[in-house]
């Protein structure tokens, strides 16, 4: 089987860390800044950063609709932190731009400001039987999720990771750790979707 080619949206934020992790797991990566960078990608990651900044640049450079179109045609997409917010259909108390790929309601800065940012060992049974070192930075959580959304992890009763078909959202930052298990999980989602095509 060919190598997977996974794009990382490079409008703003921690896209290089995602690329490094994917490369260490044997993927080819592409920094996605323009529509043509989406061609022949097997999957896409929307990284952490500022969701308002990334959303605005997606619209201004005509990338938003193309990403939505590819996603609706079956390209797996994973959003981390700001990426989770952009994946959501609803954002509590905000009109900011979002891709709206997942039937979830995101709450921004839901655990507080930077002084409340934290690390915690997180149980994600679907990913691994051992807890994952999750890094939460001014993180969102998922307040509501539709019936076709599968909850993958919770912290203090708040949903922090979920999957809907080949779409994935996590409130924390696997790219800031040296632990590739969540990226490997997303690569499995990408492989499954490739087999369907």
């Amino acid at each position, binding site marked *: 089987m060919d190598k997977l080619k996974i794009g990382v949206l490079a409008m703003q934020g921690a896209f290089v860390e995602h690329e490094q992790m994917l490369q260490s797991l044997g993927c080819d990566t592409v920094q996605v800044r323009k529509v043509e960078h989406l061609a022949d990608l097997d999957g896409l990651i929307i990284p952490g950063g500022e969701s308002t900044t990334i959303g605005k640049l997606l619209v201004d450079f005509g990338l938003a609709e193309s990403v939505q179109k590819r996603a609706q045609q079956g390209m797996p997409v994973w959003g981390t932190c700001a990426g989770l917010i952009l994946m959501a259909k609803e954002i509590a108390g905000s009109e900011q731009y979002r891709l709206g790929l997942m039937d979830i309601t995101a709450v921004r800065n839901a655990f507080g400001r930077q002084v409340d940012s*934290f690390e*915690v060992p997180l149980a994600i049974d679907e990913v691994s039987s051992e807890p994952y070192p999750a890094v939460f930075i001014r993180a969102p959580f998922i307040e509501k999720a539709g019936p076709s959304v599968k909850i993958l992890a919770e912290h203090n009763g708040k949903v922090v990771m979920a999957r809907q078909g080949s779409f994935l959202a996590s409130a924390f930052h696997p790219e800031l750790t040296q632990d590739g298990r969540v990226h490997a999980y997303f690569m499995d989602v990408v492989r499954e979707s490739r087999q369907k095509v």
Partner: protein
Amino acid sequence: MTTEKGTWTVKKGLAEMLKGGVIMDVTTPEQAKIAEAAGACAVMALERVPADIRAAGGVARMADPTVVLRIMDAVTIPVMAKARIGHFVEAQILESLGADYIDESEVLTPADDLYHINKHDFKVPFVCGARNLGEALRRIGEGAAMIRTKGEPGTGNVVEAVRHARQVMSEIRKLTNMPHEELMTFAKEIGAPYDLVCMVAKEGRLPVVNFAAGGIATPADAALMMQLGVDGVFVGSGIFKSGDPVRRAKAIVAATTHYNDPQVLAEVSKDLGEPMVGIEIPTIPADQRMQERGW
């Protein structure tokens, strides 16, 4: 399961999230909203922008907490605030307000002429200015989780930011080619902690995110700094001292993302109105150069 707050990973991690972005100086909630709408990844809450601090003279201090709190209320993006070099009580106050990052800044009048703040004491992360690798690594040794070039604030003249970015990059390049036995003497010469010198020699980069600051006034300036290898830019006086802050702010954000694409840079540089009036560095008396502050 135990939750840990204020760890090095989350302090450094917020800076990682700001990469590829523009942090804008703002003095009012209205300006903060303009910055957020234009795509700023964070704002710096100030009472006066550096150009006005320079013009006013006298002692420049931490902003009134009311100014910081109002700006925090106005936007959802991270809000930074400045404390004077060595003034750890100003930093304690800013931390208690809930500021997301503290800039221990040469733009304000230093409160201590020998020592910087011990930034390890705080849960809130700090960014500090640097003109060279030694200065950057001393600040990181004290606990800074993010570095920015100093440039010369409030001038609208990018030459000093370029000089400082090139200086840091060239010292890093030199270091990566050094055999291990030369590292201790190099550490002594630049006045930097030995363990951090070894880390930079191995990794070929600073151990924290490095932004450019001090004199960036146009989209081309921002792209220039990005092409020189910084992770993002601070724009101080350059936006709200220009003729059309909304357009200029948007253009600088776009230029920071598409810094390697001259066609996009040409497009966003059109019709921006008057840039801020710049100052030639030699016309600033040596004792009024902000970059000299810091030890």
